[in-house]
């Protein structure tokens, strides 16, 4: 029984089961569907609660960010832990510390961005583009409250800026600016910030990740603004971790774990 036969059997069975499941779904886009407004006769669904009450409680107009960082902040913390764990798994698989470096890809020693004549065009544009990308990324992280954005998107853009340096020049340039030790520390620091924001309310007597009580800490005049500020702090933690892990994954994958020379 070659794999193709297995595949077609599995596909047919799961397909039929899924289609059978769809048969009595509410029509696409119907606002009265149970997910959008709760089961008939039952309590209103949580999404209505978020839409109506979440601005009042957290002063964050972007509902997705408020649900993401505050109501279901525990989920997002573990999401960042997933990114961190994936990074660690990749290092565990790939990282070899170069003593038996038989497959080292040689790369030009001199840094190529400033001055190597046949890379001028790429070098200069990259030198101009990277700061703009990073500033826009910080804007995305900070402006997550009001417009679609937040820690993940901003962090990926920051990581992309470093990858741009690595692509434009060679890996050593990027590693020069963002070495292995620093991306490991930043990655751990990001989650420590996130979990720190969670443990702080515990110290003040409330449950984990209950930002309301942090008004004493942020000196705001009400738990709502304290929640909004701590959400920003949490987003910064996420951004740090995502940035360092994205860049680290690129660095390790391209140099097959040796971090000597890469793409």
């Amino acid at each position, binding site marked *: 029984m070659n794999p193709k036969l297995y595949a077609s059997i599995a596909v047919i069975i799961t397909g039929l089961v899924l289609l059978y499941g769809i048969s009595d779904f509410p029509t696409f886009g119907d606002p009265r569907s149970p997910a959008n407004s709760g089961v008939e006769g*039952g309590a209103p669904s949580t999404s209505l609660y978020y839409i109506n009450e979440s601005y009042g409680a957290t002063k964050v107009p972007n509902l997705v960010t408020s649900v993401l960082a505050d109501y279901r902040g525990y989920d997002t913390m573990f999401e960042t832990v997933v990114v961190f764990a994936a990074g660690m798994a*990749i290092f565990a698989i790939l990282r070899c510390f170069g003593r038996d470096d038989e497959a080292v890809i040689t790369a030009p020693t001199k840094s190529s961005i400033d001055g190597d004549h046949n890379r001028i065009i790429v070098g200069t544009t990259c030198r101009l583009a990277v700061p703009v990308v990073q500033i826009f990324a910080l804007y995305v992280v900070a402006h997550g409250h009001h417009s679609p954005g937040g820690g993940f998107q901003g962090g990926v853009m920051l990581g992309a800026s470093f990858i741009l340096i690595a692509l434009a020049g060679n890996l050593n340039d990027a590693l020069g600016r963002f070495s292995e030790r620093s991306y490991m520390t930043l990655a751990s620091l990001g989650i420590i910030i996130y979990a720190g924001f969670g443990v702080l309310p515990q110290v003040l007597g409330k449950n*984990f990740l209950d*930002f309301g009580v942090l008004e004493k800490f942020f000196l705001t005049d009400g738990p709502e603004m304290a929640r909004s500020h701590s959400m920003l702090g949490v987003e910064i933690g996420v951004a740090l971790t995502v940035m360092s892990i994205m860049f680290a994954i690129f660095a390790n994958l391209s140099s097959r774990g040796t971090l000597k020379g890469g793409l």
Partner: protein
Amino acid sequence: MLEQLPALILLAPLFGALLIGLVGLHDRRACFPIAFASLVVSLASALGAAMRAFTGGAYNYFIGGWEEPLGISIVLRVDALNGLLLIAIAVVAVLAVIFTIRPSSEKDTDKTAYFYILFLLLCVGLFGITITGDAFNLFVLIEVSALTSYGLVAIGTSRRCKMAAFHYLLMGTVGASFYLLGVGYLYLKTGSLNIEDINTILTTNATVAQSPGIVTAFLLILVGIWIKMAFFPLYGWLPNAYSYCPSGSSCLLAPLMTKVSVYVMIRVMLSLFGLEWVFGHPGWSDLVVWLAVIAILAGSIMALAQREIKRMLCYLIVAEIGYMVGGAWLNDPNLWGLTGASYHILADALMTLCLFLFAGILFKYHGISEIGDLGGLFKKMPLTSIGFVIGALAMIGVPPTSGFFSKFYLIRGGIEGGHPEYVGALLISSLVNAVLFFRIFEIAYFGKNPADGHSHDHGHDSHGHDDHGEAASPVLREAPTYALIPLLAAAALILLLGIFNGQIIELIRTAFGNSAIVVSNLR
């Protein structure tokens, strides 16, 4: 401080991992102490949280303090059943971490930092899965534990572990995605993600409960979890993954990963859909029990055919999973099958830990992985053999050990539930286990090839027995103490779990007691 314990169980290993992230790269010796300290803290808080659940009944811990409409934020729920499992995970993790101490002379220690981070994050994932009360959060934690276990499998130096890890990754991700899809279907039909909330919606209005969407959601979740726990038809990834990974990580993965998935299945059946709903569908219970019977028989027979110790233990895990799934689905009147299955989760975690520690010691310190070259083990490594013998007797189901009592309850459930084929499968599999382990006892006791014909004729001049049969196998000497401590501790716990199973059974039944259906009488 006491009511913060459920969160502390998770946070201790998380902060431990992050600390190692900060400090571990350049100071390798600091990794083990941090890991050990954080696991001991989580063991203590697991005990505290569980005690509170045993005495005061199940309680909720609202993350972020959002309490009024249930389900708007994530709830951690601790009751007697997952309290016991929390303690079991913590104990297994502490024992496994002690086993991973490497002698300072060891050469390739540059990956220790990553190893310990993955080790602790896996513990975070497992604690999270056991304690969470939110369906989607369960998916995220399944992914955390899955990713870390792919890393732990692939960290090894054997040439085959990468391929095994790849297959494990594919199957694991498909399983987790099926679970995610199932939760999606549930969310679409009920509008809530909290386990308790969904349960109340399903029990209150029957139209939603009988709709095809919910039935498909249950099937998807079940298949997803079966892939994660390597239930019979979907077990392809387990033997390679657990036998080619380094011994340090196999001692944590083998005892816990599949058992926690069984716990998730029981949690889904018990609290998410409710037992009446699950057993309301005629025919499902018999079908699953027959699948479990096939799993038990296939696992045991394939274990017989193996020559390597770890692969044999992997197939035994597949058979044990068949015990638990079959037990949970027996649908017997006063739930002895489900009690037996939950008790077997604890018993099997310790048994598998004991046996994998034994296999780990042999592989790590003597490079032995074949059953054949275990000659003269009893004489050369007495302490290790004692641990192994107790673990093996528990697997066979010899009375004072916990293995006997879990089989006792499962068989009782089988008889009362009217599934003689399940009882038969259990008995056949214990016989096969007996043959399996006595084959090893024989080789360990007699030496590889006993001198033939030492009959009684020349009784007068007996000669020493030390030289015969041992010269061929590698020289065996007793394992170092920090490898023996976890092995003997696990063996002692197996016995203790067996002798004092009365209290544990009562705790488990109270967990069922306040679940949806009322248990008739606590026997």
